[in-house]
């Protein structure tokens, strides 16, 4: 392996090839679902699995007709839970992280330690007691029951503290204070914009976490017009066990639901630069 320095930079087929194989493995189910969603239900189990067909539009129409378009309702619900939830979560995390980084006050380390312990409290373990508590308030089976528990994100606060420490200079805060600016004004108008690149990362993290969370809405919701996509498609798949014609609808639904997220990912890729261990984020 001791190649001379001059030719070291020449392309390596082996390393490029391994990466391309990895990429193909990751694209494999995605390419498959594009083909599968275009098949009629007879074709799904009879034609070659990657052979596309012409029924995609038809499947989408049937999916839209299913229970008066409840699928599109799931799509909107997911956007609401993940979008609004992640936005609120990012703001709360930014505020808490900023205070923990930039203020000195008694109990600061205690607060931070307790919050940090929450980082790895498995959210799914909380789901059942959260359900029981919200049931006593009559809040289960509402939008609130899925939205509210996911606003608090100890990991988001932890990241925000790092961003605030790194990107908001103490002099700027002091200067604003000398000119009589209130603390919340300084945070919203001065600190928040400075932390913005890092906050996009927190937003994305939380967005994916909420959109990925299956157990919480699965437990909280009974009314299928409130379902996010994950719970809705899971239910549709369950019904497919007795009515295989629904399988093509499930697959069309799966395809339609990954399209927007994939697009969002491609556009925001550069914000996924998280160094978990060093805690430093190069945004």
């Amino acid at each position, binding site marked *: 392996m001791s190649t001379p320095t001059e030719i070291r*930079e*020449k392309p390596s087929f082996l390393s490029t090839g391994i990466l391309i194989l990895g990429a193909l493995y990751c694209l494999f189910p995605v390419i498959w679902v594009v083909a599968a969603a275009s098949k009629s239900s007879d074709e799904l189990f009879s034609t070659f*699995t990657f052979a596309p067909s012409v029924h995609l539009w038809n499947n989408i129409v049937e999916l839209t007709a299913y229970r008066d378009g409840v699928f599109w309702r799931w799509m909107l619900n997911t956007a609401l839970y993940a979008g609004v939830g992640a936005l609120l979560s990012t703001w709360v995390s930014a505020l808490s992280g900023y205070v923990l980084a930039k203020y000195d006050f008694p109990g600061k380390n205690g607060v931070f330690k307790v919050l940090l312990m929450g980082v790895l409290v498995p959210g799914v*373990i909380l789901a059942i*007691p959260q359900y029981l*508590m919200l049931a006593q308030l009559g809040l289960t089976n509402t939008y609130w029951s899925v939205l509210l528990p996911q606003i608090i994100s100890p990991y988001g606060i932890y990241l925000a503290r790092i961003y605030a420490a790194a990107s908001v200079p103490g002099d700027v805060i002091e200067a604003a204070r000398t000119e009589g600016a209130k603390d919340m004004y300084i945070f919203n108008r001065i600190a928040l914009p400075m932390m913005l690149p890092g906050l996009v990362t927190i937003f994305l993290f939380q967005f*994916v976490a909420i959109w990925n969370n299956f157990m919480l809405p699965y437990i909280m919701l009974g009314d299928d017009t409130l379902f996010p996509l994950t719970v809705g498609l899971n239910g549709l798949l369950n019904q497919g066990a007795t009515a295989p014609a629904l399988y093509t609808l499930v697959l069309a639904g799966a395809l339609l639901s990954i399209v927007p997220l994939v697009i969002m990912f491609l556009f925001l890729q550069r914000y996924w630069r998280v160094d978990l261990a060093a805690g430093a984020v190069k945004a």
Partner: protein
Amino acid sequence: MAATATAPTKAEKTASAGPGTPRKARNFRQRAMTPYAMLTPGIVLFLVFMAAPIAYTLVLSFQQKKVSGLGLGKGAQSTVFAGFDNYIRSLTDPEFTASVLRVLTYGAILIPLMLGFALLFALLLDSRRTRAGNFSRTAIFLPYAVPAVISSLLWGFLYLPGVSPFHFVADRLGIALPSLLNPDLITFAIANIALWGGVGFNMIVMYTSLKAVPQEIYEAAKLDGASEIQTALRIKIPIIAPSVVMTALFSMIATLQVFAEPTTLRPLANSLSTSWSPLMLVYRDAFTRNDIYSAAATSIIIALATFAISFLFLRIVQKRAFGQEN
């Protein structure tokens, strides 16, 4: 929240009426309270949606339902203190031990493969001799955008012998492949779904820390005649070791909580029981059997196991992360 932090207090009104020392005192007191006021949304949400549910689960885990008479009518059922009964029952329940064993096997398959491939891909991406890096990086990271329910659904169909391209090819060649959905192989089937979803994220984490290493180190190694593989093994891997440790911890935690994948696969695979993973068991006890007390005890056991791992995490993070603030 802005209202709480900036609302004129009684002290402020007196202060604006008469200048001098009271204003200073007011400023000082208000300044001292400000951080707490600003932390209120975070702390309240934390208490209501994290601390209170944990406390509630603890209380439930030490209780059980006592039925008097036929258990009919008002007052026939009451809640009594149960001591460690629920815990003993959970820990000695063969279904629970079986689910823990399954998940440990699942983790033993998944974590080394996922982190091994993530590390390999990250190092290859970082190598200057690799081409098509942007394409591969994006493609490998893409599954992270696909929620576990949908990835399980896609792979679940791909495992069905009637759909699977591997079975199609094997059939043509006259080979009989076993179905991945049969009881012996289902653990591998689920591990593959999690591998698919997780390898890209872990790769990005490791790749990011590789990028943070100053290039001069590599130049120096190159001048000393180190080969690329030597550089990777002796310099790059030790430098990003903390990242690898972190991803390992996060993966272990996620493994203990596996729920969405097996739950989604169940309609396609008869061999998956309702107690396949510990969390599925908790869900079944709480909602199908209405035995919330056992479910609470089992939750606490899983949480404690998670905390044992988290503790390690805290020690690593606190030492490394917050040196730069002051």
